[in-house]
């Protein structure tokens, strides 16, 4: 086994452990921190697969920006320890077998229908070719996938506008009445 593969498996184990910890923890801030660990471990996986740019963006966008907002909101609302209800016991009883079944199904579909079976076990793809550097990613994004890229940006813009509309104060008629 090469050192790359060992590291790849180690990062994978960290990601899975972090994800499980995210569900098990009772306090929201611990869950958020586990999610950051998952993001960082995924960035490590991307790095080992030769996608340096994606790895850096993963850290900057997910771990450095989105999760900061998560933590910020948890701090701002001072969310306490989660309460256990009967509903969550039911979720544990049926959720874990269901989750296992679902992940098995996904693994089967991916192995069967995406051509990954052609990759030899013990060799990571893409370590040598330069397909992960910023130039190559840019070419793909702005030439071949330009339309999906633009549509996604419009979607995000609409989402931002929606958030602003929802969060902004309604036209303040009561306040006016007070002034009058």
């Amino acid at each position: 086994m090469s050192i790359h593969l060992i590291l790849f498996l180690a990062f994978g184990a960290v990601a899975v452990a972090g994800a499980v910890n995210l569900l098990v923890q009772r306090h929201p801030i611990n869950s958020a921190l586990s999610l950051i660990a998952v993001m960082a471990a995924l960035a490590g996986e991307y790095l080992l697969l030769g996608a340096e740019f994606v790895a850096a963006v993963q850290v900057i966008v997910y771990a450095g920006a989105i999760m900061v907002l998560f933590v910020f909101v948890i701090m701002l609302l001072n969310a306490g320890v989660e309460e256990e209800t009967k509903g969550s016991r039911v979720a544990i009883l049926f959720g874990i077998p269901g989750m296992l079944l679902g992940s098995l199904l996904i693994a089967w579909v991916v192995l069967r229908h995406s051509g990954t079976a052609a990759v030899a076990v013990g060799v990571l793809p893409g370590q040598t070719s330069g397909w992960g550097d910023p130039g190559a990613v840019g070419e793909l994004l702005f030439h071949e996938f330009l339309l999906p890229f633009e549509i996604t940006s419009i979607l995000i813009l609409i989402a931002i506008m929606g958030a602003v509309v929802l969060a902004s104060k309604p036209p303040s008629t009561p306040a006016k009445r007070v002034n009058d």
Partner: protein
Amino acid sequence: MIKSAIVLGVLLTGVAYTVWLERKVVGHMQNRWGPTRVGPFGLLQPAADGIKFLFKEDLTPPHVYKPLFLAAPLIAVIFALTSIAVIPFGNWITIGGYDIPLQITDVNIGLLMILGITSIGVYGVALAGWSSNNKYSLLGGLRASAQMVSYEISLGLSLVGVLIMSGSFSLRAIVDAQGGHFWGFIPHWNIIPQFVGFFCYLMAAYAETNRIPFDLPEAETELVAGYHTEYSAMKFAMFFMAEYANMITVACLATLLFLGGWHGPITSISFLQPIMPVFWFVAKIFAFLFLYIWVRGTLPRFRYDQLMAFGWKFLLPLALVNLIGTAIAVAW
């Protein structure tokens, strides 16, 4: 390995003496002497402070959330010190037949790596504020995370202009692109075509490192000491080290991206040839740090709403305009 140890040692010494420099310079600006008692010109003051921090009683208040209270200073200082790994501080030197690059590792996404590491450093401050279970600390932590997230966008955008001009994320390549002169005498540094970008970078960098005039997370007139109110001894010193290490990283980035890195006006003295690049690099960092301290001694603190309005309504549009202008100029 040896290189990492040397760089870390130099960085930590640099951190200690930046504190000394700041106390000395601000002292003289305010008609005081600054530290004078320990050693000549107070030069041993950092060592005395370090010993004091190590031997002070390390209090952990009973009402804190302990795991994160202990982890927060570690997060802050580790991420502040890690980002130095990709910074090249000189050209190649030859020792005993080996060509050694003056840099710990040269990755081709070096700049992105620094941005990623510094963006994770926010957690140290945010978690310190939250886990202290104290309203002043919490307010400091909230202010710090809001401020750093807001200004990170302007910081990133102000750098893109330089990236477009040099066409690489590798810091070594960016510096190499700045060798030579315009018309034979003006140095070919990015600050000349990118002075708007440099201005945006400067403002955003002050806010990112929580320094005056943007030091609202620790505004002592309203928040006691902000996010590190509950910390004492070495744990407090870790936040202090993280702040000054971040200042040095920001100064390194400014030098590499805008001020021509290790290129300098005089390089032709033959027997000093190997160390001249390092000399110029350190001199520029020193000048940048002096500017930091000068600003601290001169400007008052912003109000919080002014800070946010300045970041979102002025700095961000300015950085965007600079980016578009640079892109048009390069494409044309």
